[in-house]
C-alpha cells in the first residue's frame, strides 16, 4: 500500500483511469467506496485499496431541469435535463453519479432497482475537459 493510495483525492484520480476504487478494512472487512483512511465501522487505520466491479442498481434518482453552473457549462438546461442518481454498488456501498443512456422524456418510467454499470463521461471541452463517473443501464 503506497502512502497516498487511500487519501481523499484517490477516488477522483482513479476515475481519470476509468476505475472506481475503495478500501477494505483489514480488521473488520468493511468495504468503503469512496475509500477511507479510517474505518467508519471499527476505526482501524489498516486498510487496503480495492477496485469495484462497476455493477450496481439504482437506489434513488432525479432529473434536473435547473442545473448548477458547472452542469449548465456542460450544456444542460431545462430543455436538455440530466439524470443524477444514487447507485447501490454490488460491493454494498452507495455512491452518487450521473446516470446516462435513459429516456428522460418520462422520468416516471425510470425504475428504482434497475441494474446499472459504470461508464465515464467527459464534461467541458479542450483545457476544461474533465472525466466524471457515470452509470448506464445494462
Amino acid at each position, binding site marked *: 500500500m503506497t502512502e497516498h493510495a487511500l487519501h*481523499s*483525492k484517490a*477516488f*477522483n484520480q482513479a476515475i481519470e483511469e476509468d476505475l472506481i476504487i475503495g478500501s477494505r478494512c483489514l480488521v473488520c472487512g468493511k468495504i468503503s467506496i*469512496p475509500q477511507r483512511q479510517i474505518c*467508519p465501522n471499527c476505526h482501524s487505520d489498516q486498510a487496503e485499496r480495492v477496485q469495484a466491479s462497476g455493477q450496481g442498481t439504482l*437506489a*434513488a*434518482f*432525479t*432529473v*434536473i*431541469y*435547473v*442545473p*448548477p*453552473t*458547472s*452542469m*449548465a457549462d456542460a450544456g*444542460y438546461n*431545462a430543455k436538455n*435535463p*440530466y439524470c*443524477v*442518481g*444514487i447507485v447501490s454498488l454490488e460491493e454494498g*456501498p*452507495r*455512491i*452518487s*453519479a*450521473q446516470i446516462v443512456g435513459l429516456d428522460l422524456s418520462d*422520468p416516471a418510467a425510470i425504475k*428504482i432497482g434497475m441494474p446499472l454499470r459504470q461508464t465515464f463521461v467527459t464534461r467541458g471541452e479542450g483545457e476544461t475537459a474533465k472525466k*466524471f*463517473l457515470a452509470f448506464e443501464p445494462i
Partner: protein
Amino acid sequence: MAKKLSRGVAVVGVGMSKFGVFPEKTSRDLFVEAFQELMQSVQKGFNPNDIEAFYMGNFTSDYFENQSHLAPIVANWVGISPAASTRIEDACASGGVALRQAMLAIASGDVDVVLVGGLEKMTDLPGAKVTDALALAADSMFEIPAGFTFPGFYAAMATAYIDKYQADPDALLRVGIKNHENGALNDKAQFNQTIRSVMTGKQKKAEQKGLPIPDWQDEMAFLKDPKANPMIAWPLRLFDCSPVSDGAAAVLLVSEELADKFADEPLFIVGSGQASDGALAERASLSEVPAAALASQQAYEMAGIQPDDIDFAEVHDCFTIAEIMASEDLGFFPRGEGWRAAMEGRTARDGSHPINTSGGLKSKGHPVGASGVGQVVEVWKQMHGLAGERQLRGNLRYALTHNVGGTGQTCVVHIFEKRN
C-alpha cells in the same frame, strides 16, 4: 439515563424581520429589525448591556455578502459590544445550532443572558450563483461532481420515499398548499398568499391582458400544470421548493432563575438534541433522515415526554418531501404514514399534529441562517396567543422546532414548554 442541563434555560423574548427580497437592505439592517422587535417583546423590558454573549447562525455571508467574521460586526451594530460574539456555520441548521450553543453556554453557568441571532442576505446574487452557494453545503468531492443540486438531493429522497411506501406524489403538493394557507395569515412571510390566490391572480392577469384564461379547476390542477409550476428536479416542482430569501431573527435566552425578571410568561427549553451524518449516499435508508430521528430522541428524553405530547411543531420544510420525512423522523407518524397524514390534513392547524403554522420555510421564506431561529418566533407567538388569524386553539404546553443542515448532515431539535 436521560441527559439533563446543569441548569434551566428560558426564552424571554423574540423578534424577526419580514422575510423576503430586500435589495436595499444588508443582513445588518435586517438584524436590526429583528432586534428592535425582540426588545419590544421582552415583557418586563431589559438593558442590552446585560447581554453577555451572542451566538449568530449564518451560512455563508462570505459568499453572499463578501463578509466573514460577521458576528462581532453585527453585535457592534446593535450596540452590544463587548459581548462574546460567535458565528455558527452548519449550513441551513446554523440558526438552530446557534440556539443550542447559547442554551449550553447558559446551562454551563458561565453566562446568564445570551442573544441568539440568525441572518442571511441571499438575493444580491443571481439565481445560478445562489444555487452554487447552497451547493457548498454538500460534499464537494463526492456529491457535487455527480451533478446534484439541493432540490436534486431532496428529489432523490422523494423518489426513494415514494418507491418504498408506494406513496401518492400528490402528498407533496398538499404540503405546499397547507403551508401557503398558513403563511397567508403571517405578515412576516415572503409569500403570504394561498396557492389558490396565486392561481386566481394569474387567471385575472391573463384576462386583463386579453390572453386565453387558464382553466385550472383547483390548486391541484394549477400545481400540476408544468407551465404554471415548472419541474425543478423531478419529482419536485417550483412550488415544492422554499424560496431564496433575505431575513433575520433573534431570541433572548436567560438562565431559569432570572426568567421572571424578564418575562411574565417565559418559555422553557426542556429538550434539546443534535446529531450529524455523512453524505446522503452513505445512509442505510434514503427515505428518512437518521440524524433528525436521533436528535429528536435526545430532545424527547431530556424533556421526559413523547411525540404525542407535542402540541405543534415548526419543521424544516426546505422542500415539501422534507416535511413529510420530518413528520416521521420526529415520531408524529409511523414510517410510511407521513404522506398519508399530509393528504388527510392531519398536519393542518385543525389537525392532530399541526406543523408549520407560520407557513414554514416554504411560504415564510428560507434565509438559511435565520430559519432555525425564526422557528422559535412562531413558537413564542403561538404560546402567547399572538398568532392572529393562524392562532391554534386550546391550551398549548409543548412545542418542537426541527432544523436541518444540508440533506441531514446536521440536525438539531428543541422542545419548549410553557408553564402556567
